């Protein structure tokens, strides 16, 4: 482990009187400061109560913000957690590059659970539609068991999807990593209960109360670098199920699908096979934020095929141990 992470010097207002509405005392925090403070509290709570925590890191914006918050929570000491990436084998190369750079920069330890490896061994089978997102659950849960991780940080946000609206900050999973919405513990005040039996673990969601716009505003405020695919660029894409997908060996384009070169960017980053790009000319953070603030579609509605599988798709995947 190398030493202190380079913590960005946040330039946001930290509760000093600037920008507070007149109805509030000078002690009012901005919403970003309040969310940041809450997330840091969650990271430190886990560090104090668990033996082997790990941060799920996909190289997407939410996990990048999680890591940034973890760096701030423990500075000037290093982050006391490893990273875990569930590699679908269909990742965008820009995202893998970013992941490796971040790991090197902060001297972090990276664990990888590989979907491709499971397919090669014949444990998992490729789906007809080519998407590998639902295949991530088994490699993830087996890695958690093998490494005996007892707390697993995920970047899930409650605003993303209706099953996630019911998720706890500390979400207990049994030894099969299953989520039972009826068995979740009531979560009161800021008192998180992380007690669990051997073999069980707790999924922890520090960004529970953040929205997509909060995440982007925070990225802008903290000047956090992101993979380039979040900004507008020219790309060869083809249309499937109403989404622009990246052409590639993973399974597209197929018969009747035509590749075109378009100016696009990604609102979410997942598996190449189920993450759609949106037409965009937003090349800066400010332009991206303006675009999101004006968008009439949720980020998953606009870009994620995996949630369209059924009305209860996310609920079903969560029950099985998905993020």
């Amino acid at each position, binding site marked *: 482990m190398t030493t202190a992470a380079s913590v960005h010097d946040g330039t946001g207002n930290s509760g000093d009187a600037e920008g507070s509405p007149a109805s509030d005392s000078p002690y009012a925090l901005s919403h970003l400061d*309040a969310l940041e403070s809450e997330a840091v509290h969650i990271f430190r709570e886990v560090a104090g109560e668990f033996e082997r925590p790990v941060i799920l890191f996909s190289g997407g914006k939410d996990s990048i913000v999680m890591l940034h918050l973890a760096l701030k929570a423990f500075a*000037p000491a290093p982050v006391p957690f490893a990273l875990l990436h569930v590699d679908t084998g269909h990742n965008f190369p820009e995202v893998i590059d970013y992941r490796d750079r971040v790991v090197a920069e902060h001297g972090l330890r990276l664990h990888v659970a590989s979907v491709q490896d499971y397919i090669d061994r014949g444990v998992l089978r490729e789906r007809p539609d080519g998407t590998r997102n639902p295949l991530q659950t088994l490699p993830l849960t087996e890695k958690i068991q093998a490494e005996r991780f007892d707390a697993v940080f995920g970047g899930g946000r409650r605003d993303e999807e209706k099953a996630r609206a*019911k998720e706890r900050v500390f979400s207990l999973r049994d030894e099969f990593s299953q989520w039972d*919405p009826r068995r979740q*513990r*009531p979560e009161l005040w800021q008192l998180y209960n992380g007690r669990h039996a051997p073999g069980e673990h707790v999924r922890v969601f520090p960004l529970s109360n953040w929205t997509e716009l909060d995440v982007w505003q925070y990225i802008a405020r903290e000047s956090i670098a992101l993979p380039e695919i979040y900004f507008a660029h020219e790309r060869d894409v083809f249309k499937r199920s109403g989404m622009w997908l990246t052409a590639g060996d993973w399974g597209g384009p197929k018969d009747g699908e035509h590749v075109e070169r378009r100016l696009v960017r990604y609102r979410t980053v997942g598996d190449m096979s189920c993450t759609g790009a949106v037409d965009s000319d937003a090349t800066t953070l400010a332009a991206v934020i303006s675009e999101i603030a004006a968008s009439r579609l949720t980020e998953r509605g606009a870009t994620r095929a995996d949630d369209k599988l059924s009305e209860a798709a996310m609920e079903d995947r969560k029950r099985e141990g998905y993020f």
Partner: protein
Amino acid sequence: MTSTIDTAAGELAGLSATTLLRFATAGSVDDGKSTLVGRLLHDSKSVLADQLEAVEHASRSRGAEGPDLALLTDGLRAEREQGITIDVAYRYFATPRRRFILADTPGHVQYTRNMVTGASTADLAVVLVDARNGVIEQTRRHAAVAALLRVPHVVLAVNKMDLVGYEETVFARIAEEFTAYAGELGVPEITAIPISALAGDNVVEPSSNMDWYGGPTVLEHLETVPVSHDLTSCHARLPVQYVIRPQTAEHPDYRGYAGQIAAGAFRVGESVTVLPSGRTSKVAGIDLLGKPVDVAWTPQSVTVLLEDDIDVSRGDLIVPSSDTPSTSQDIAATVCHVADTPLVVGQRVLLKHTTRTVKAIVKQIPSRLTLDDLSQHPNPGQLVANDIGRVLVRTAEPLALDAYADSRRTGSFLLIDPADGTTLAAGMAGEAFAKAEDAHGAPADDEGWDF
């Protein structure tokens, strides 16, 4: 919910200056709660096209005429099948003036624990009544929960005004009755608003049907109610979460005590005492997530550096030397029982208070409280799910609890089952309501625990 904000593109400075309000709703499906929540989200333009499309599709497939806004807040499959809400759901929306986190809690009698959960972090609670029924048992229960959890602001939303001809006298009578009841319980601030969630009157847009009402709409009130108060009168409290010791060449001697300020404010130079040890020192520095500051306050997460090298660890409480709480192993509190198995006298539990978890025994359950009429039932022997009662708990180590009335973060605790980690009860130290109660008897023997 992903929010949209109707501001000119790129006004980032404006966007980042909003504050955050956490609020909870209480009321049942019959009162139109889902419709109110759906209306708030819809009329504040927080519902996006794909979500609305899903709602319209679902409404059509159920044979509804127009989009049923209540479906926006539908969660899990079991709920859709049974038409009920089984848990707290959190919803997010924003206006140019403020960001909101809504704890949407079901209002049925068996879901007291969900309402308690939602109210525990709320700055404001919206209690919904049906104008045709007025204040009923359930309304009194909701008022009692808001009072018990010390929610600073309560809004009485008198819904379905369209079904009573938008009559001012109907509204005034209900508002008066509720305000008198909630006031007696010690609710500090009550705002009554006549609305029709279905028609949209006074939810986001002012109603043209109720010219007699001159107050704010629900959303206007949510946007302007103060979310923080003057902290100078509060006890300052910092529970230590974690000790940061890099032990690197760059920071060989750095030793910082990390935590979220639970109440009040701390200043550099201030004399502080560390509990339970009672050792004293001075604040040498405050690190606000990478930025040194002279003063920090709740709910900021900070790292505090002390002038002296004293022994401080997770679970300790840093307080001003001029304002130390008393420590005790005997806690009298009101609890809401949240587990499916009962809580009984003599039960061995774990008690989690701030960042400290200690062994404890339930010594007595002096009374159970009926929320409908606040009647006390002496010595019930046990509390079952959704019961609210008084308990006396003896802890294995001294704890520095404040009265919940003074400090929600340092006056609250959880009781946890040591066997499987289940959260059993949510506790609030001190008196339940603003009204004084009799103190209860002294605890009995320690039943063989090495205290």
